[in-house]
């Protein structure tokens, strides 16, 4: 008799456990589907306030292209600004600092630089094998999570370096969990004429970016959900 009772009790609790687990997975799936559905739909707010903005910098031409874009954005709409570059990329942070100081100088009497500069472990070094990149990407993901929890941006601007992928994935997860809704904008580099970069391909296929911009018509033909905006440089 007692054996039967304890058996049925453990059955009950394991059934309960399984039900909770299934309910949890279902909720997550529903949230993911909802986020993917809402991704790419313009925000419904009229005249929003200033939006906290994460700007992802990358070595080589990436930072130059990003600065080119920042110069035509109204800085009072995208503030406070958080710049993230790879840990080994001091030049990009330097260029961003120069840009921000020139903005601070040109403003009269306003509070000083409303920007922060951070560095993140790289998902993948240039030339690194794709196999070892799996581990380094995981490390980068954890570091990215730490930084994103601190920043919780409303806007994410990126243009291709590997560093942006973990950050965009985490921004997407924040949308699913409800920590912060953000608008993710991805501008594929001008150096990408016929093929997308790996970051671009992933963000396009997984529908993580709200708006995906390409600079050459060949890419627009291949990836019709992207916006063709011509050359930025």
């Amino acid at each position, binding site marked *: 008799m007692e054996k039967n009772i304890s058996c049925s009790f453990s059955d009950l609790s394991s059934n309960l456990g399984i039900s909770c687990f299934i309910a949890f997975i279902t909720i997550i799936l529903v949230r993911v589907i909802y986020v993917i559905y809402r991704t790419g739909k*313009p925000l419904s707010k009229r005249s929003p306030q200033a939006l906290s903005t994460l700007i992802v910098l990358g070595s080589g031409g990436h930072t130059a292209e990003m600065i080119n874009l920042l110069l*035509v954005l109204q800085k009072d*709409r995208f503030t406070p600004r958080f710049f993230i570059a790879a840990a080994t990329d001091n030049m990009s942070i330097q260029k961003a600092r120069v840009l921000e100081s020139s903005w601070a100088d040109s403003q009269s009497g306003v509070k000083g630089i409303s920007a922060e500069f951070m560095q993140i472990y790289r998902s993948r070094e240039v*030339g690194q094998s794709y196999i070892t990149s799996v581990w380094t990407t995981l490390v980068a993901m954890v570091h990215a999570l730490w930084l994103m929890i601190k920043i919780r941006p409303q806007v994410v601007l990126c243009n291709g370096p590997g560093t942006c992928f973990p950050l965009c994935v985490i921004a997407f997860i924040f949308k699913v969990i409800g920590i912060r809704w953000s608008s993710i904008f991805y501008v594929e580099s001008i150096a990408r004429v016929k*093929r997308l*970069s790996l970051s671009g391909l992933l963000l396009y296929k997984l529908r993580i970016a709200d708006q995906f911009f390409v600079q050459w018509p060949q890419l627009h033909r291949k990836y019709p959900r992207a916006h063709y905006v011509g050359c930025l440089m």
Partner: protein
Amino acid sequence: MGESLDGVKGKRVVFVTVGTTRFDALVKVVDSQEVKDELLRRGYTNLLIQMGRGSYLPTKSTGDDGSLAVDYFTFSSSIVEHLKSASLVISHAGSGSIFETMRFGKPLIVVVNEDLMDNHQSELAEELAERKHLYCARPPTLHLTIASMDLKSLVPYSPGDATPVAKLINRFLGFPED
């Protein structure tokens, strides 16, 4: 451009840049007798090489004996002055170097690094070469490109514009149109 007619050559500098990369194949081939002879034949007097993180060291030369004057350095905080004073630029295929050079309207030969793993850089160089904004070469064929190039046939590149992207971003976020 073109050869000086009065026999007294002004200084005509060829500036070679590899940006922040290492591109020994380019530095080596530019330092080769074949390429240097071709540059002399086309009327250039000086060769200045920015060699970046490379390990191959070119041979310096004062050019007093009528040969090409050769000098090199690794990095500088800004290559703008070198670009401005160059008559010809030979660059690696990085987009930053390419667009910075075209902004100054300098004739440009882009050399693609065949040793790079995922060589997406060649896409940009080839596209711009197809549109006649620059010449595209690989290290083994550089001397041929120099011999046959017609710089007057190059089409100036009109700078791009980031405002279409800004407009779309602002519209998406609900900011009013200016």
